[in-house]
């Protein structure tokens, strides 16, 4: 029988015969290795997973055209500079000024891609739903309150090329005038009328959507409005245009609005395109988006009669600050006529907070690892110390100190390797559970971690065996055997 065979047999026999003790040692190394591989996996995965969470703050990079607007093609080319896997969302926006037909109020309308918006701005809180069909809009909460629009109501929007919508014109026959005044509980009422050939009021319409329907709402009645028709411009009220009983505040406001109305444009210059759209959702963000009207890019193109172009492209990219900078340079270098800009508030803050979080997980991992490893080695030490008698017996039988050391170390390292393999698997399982529970996504397996865990467990078990073995070997076998 060769030496090596004997060595192996001794180790396996010792492991098998002393099953319970060895199980204790194996368990302890296994726990250590589980914690090691589990925590290190989490540590490596946390920045990536947490980074994805931080994307809920919205776009961290925007693309703006150098001048005018950019085409879809330009934007696509710029997007190619960033690995597709890291782009969480890229929402194009086209902004134009539009006018509400009834109230004649101007608002900003934004044409966009709603699937992308949900990815780049997950914090948008929509009452109702995002538009999914044609002629549908998502209305900012502020606008909804201002014009008194509710879910599923239909609004009419007019778009005029900017040069046609000059205000403050001269009152002349044929001119359209718009006015507004504060009605019930300061909600505004709006009036629109035109001047006929004799400078008299005609075609009067009022918008009292913001008023209570049973009271102020009655002012929209034609019978009531009739009393203003044919009046001279500029308008001043008298007894015959007196307030409507039960709607005092609103009717006063209407008179005020008619008196204070200003000319918006000459009727002949009106070349606007009007569309009726259904409100499918009301947007609440607490930010400036609440004063925009959002619609699909197709609707926007139909409304403006212009091809699909973008004014801005908001992008949410899952990347570190350095990576973002390199993407920015990459896009700049392609000279696409597009300027990439980083949203500083988001990128700077993200870097600051993420690095803290990473440091936290690192320190926690380090503390837990150190303590666990010491725990493992105390257990190993106890297990080996217990076997002093066996060592004494071997020595008494004539085994050399070296052979005893080698054998015990071999045993320890064998246990270490076994525990390491066990621990890597359990640790990965644990990290997987954490990842799925916390971040709702699975973890990537770090192949390097398997050998690392095994080597570290072997090292720790070998190191913790060294000292008790040394002590046992030094002692006189006779004393050890006697049990002193």
């Amino acid at each position, binding site marked *: 029988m060769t030496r090596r065979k004997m060595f192996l047999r001794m180790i396996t026999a010792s492991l098998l015969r002393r099953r319970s003790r060895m199980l204790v040692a194996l368990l302890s190394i296994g726990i250590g290795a589980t914690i090691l591989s589990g925590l290190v996996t989490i540590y490596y995965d946390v920045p990536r997973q947490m980074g994805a969470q931080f994307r*809920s703050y919205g776009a961290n990079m925007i693309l703006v055209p150098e001048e005018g607007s950019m085409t879809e093609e330009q934007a696509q080319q710029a997007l190619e500079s960033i690995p597709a896997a890291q782009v969480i969302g890229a929402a194009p926006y086209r902004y134009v000024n539009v006018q509400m037909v009834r109230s004649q109020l101007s*608002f900003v309308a934004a044409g966009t891609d709603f699937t992308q918006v949900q990815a780049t701005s997950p914090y948008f809180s929509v009452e109702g739903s995002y538009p999914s069909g044609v002629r549908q809009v998502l209305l900012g909460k502020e606008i909804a309150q201002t014009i008194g629009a509710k879910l599923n109501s239909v609004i009419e929007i007019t778009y005029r090329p900017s040069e046609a919508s000059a205000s403050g014109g001269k009152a002349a026959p044929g001119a359209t005038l718009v006015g507004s005044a504060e009605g019930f509980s300061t909600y505004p009422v709006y009036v629109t009328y035109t001047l006929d050939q004799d400078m008299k009021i005609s075609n009067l319409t009022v918008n009292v959507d913001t008023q209570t329907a049973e009271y102020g709402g009655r002012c929209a009645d034609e019978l009531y409005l009739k009393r203003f028709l044919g009046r001279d411009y500029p308008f001043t009220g008298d007894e015959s245009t007196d307030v409507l009983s039960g709607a005092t505040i609103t009717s006063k406001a209407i008179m005020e609005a008619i008196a204070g109305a200003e000319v918006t444009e000459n009727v002949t210059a009106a070349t606007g395109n009007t569309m009726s759209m259904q409100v499918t959702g009301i947007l609440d963000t*607490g930010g400036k988006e609440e*004063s925009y009207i959002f619609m699909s890019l197709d609707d926007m193109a139909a409304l403006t009669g212009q091809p699909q172009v973008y004014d801005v492209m908001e992008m949410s990219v899952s990347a570190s600050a350095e990576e973002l900078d390199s993407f920015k340079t990459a896009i700049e270098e392609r000279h696409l006529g597009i300027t990439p800009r980083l949203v500083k508030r988001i990128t700077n803050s993200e870097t600051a907070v993420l690095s803290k979080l990473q440091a936290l997980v690192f320190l926690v991992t380090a503390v837990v690892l150190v303590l666990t490893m*010491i*725990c493992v080695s105390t*257990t190993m030490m*106890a297990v080996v110390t217990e076997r002093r008698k066996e060592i004494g017996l071997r020595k008494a039988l004539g085994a050399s100190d070296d052979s005893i050391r080698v054998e015990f170390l071999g045993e320890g390292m064998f246990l270490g390797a076994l525990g390491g393999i066990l621990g890597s698997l359990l640790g990965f399982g644990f990290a997987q559970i954490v990842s799925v529970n916390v971040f709702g996504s699975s973890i990537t397996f770090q192949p390097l971690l398997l050998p690392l865990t095994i080597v570290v467990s072997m090292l720790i078990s070998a190191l913790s065996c060294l000292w008790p073995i040394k002590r046992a070997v030094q002692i006189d076998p006779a004393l050890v055997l006697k049990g002193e």
Partner: protein
Amino acid sequence: MIKGVLIRQRGKMLLIAFTIALGASLATSMINVMLDVGDKVAQELKTYGANIVVKPQDSTLLADIYDVEDGGEAIASAYLNEDEVGRIKTIFWAFNIVDFSPFITSSVSLPSGAEATAVGTWFNHHLDLPTGESLDAGVVSLRSWWDILEGAWIDEQNPEDAHTVMVGTLLAQQEGLHAGDTLKLTGKAAVEEVTVAGIFDAGGDEDMEIYAPLDMVQRLSDTEGKIASIEVSALTTPDNDLARRAAQNPRALSSKDYETWYCTAYVSAICYQITEVITGSVASAVRQVADSEGAILDKTQLLMILITALSLIGSALGISNLVTASVMERSQEIGLLKAIGAHDRAITGVFMAEILLTALVGGVAGYFMGFGFAQLIGHSVFSSAIEMKPLVIPVVAVLITLVTVAGSMPAIRMVLRLDPAEVLHGSKA
């Protein structure tokens, strides 16, 4: 007898005590860090800026809608009163208000003839509250992501800085302005001769604006004592179902729910309380900041709970493992005690007393070690101490006792069941 064992078996008992100390310190530090991590991370997330905006009730039309048509004259006719701003620090959740600042905007013309938006605000405004507290509030900390390219922040407590402004980098480039330059701002109601204190890069729309002390912009636009909005940065609890229901209409809640909601730092509760103290105001959550913050806090807390659970299970297994091993090792002693006629119960009592005494020593030492580890983590990560909750002491004590008892009892039982003769002979272990 116990004393004898403890002294004779010093080495082994020390080893056990040490391991228990390690386990206890791990439990102490992890539980403390876990309990405090929410507050700490929330504090870090304040770098994202305000999560609540307070506006006048009547200004349903934002100035930025009208910018387009009317050339920058804000339609918002209603204002808030500047002298009420400090009241934000007197609400129920005053302690959670980290920072706040009032704002007013006005359009001014520059010497070149160009129009620019001047934003009046606090930089590091000193406030003495009726509660006796005093604090510095303003945009210096509320806009922590700004880079100051030239010069420095305006120091409101320095009277020399009263006639200085901060200029956005894009506007500075366009107008050729540098820190130290003087320029004339012509507003609706007054003309001001000012010095540029600094140039900032905000990476947003602010880069085209001028930031000036509040009173200067009020003089320029003839709105003394008035402000257009207040931004508030508050530490909040992530929203849950109750908070969402309350946000719709607090009055629809049952009185018990209302109380729970009002006394929890939900963003909607804080908004509601701000509305109560500032006349004619509407406070609303900036969802971009408030919602994201909630999501991140939830995740971090859950992550820490799971890591803590893992390390607790790990150290519990480690300790009970070692205790089991140490009992098995002393099977001969147990055998001997049985052979000379000791009752099972007496033996168990003696052994348990020994081990629990060791655990007590280890546990106390471990608590203080854990205290140290927690502070190490707190200081190196968040540069502030981790609050040590007294609750942790009984939790760790119960944990350690359970673990040691669970680790030793089965082992003692097993050894007791063996025949003393066999054990003493040493043929079976």
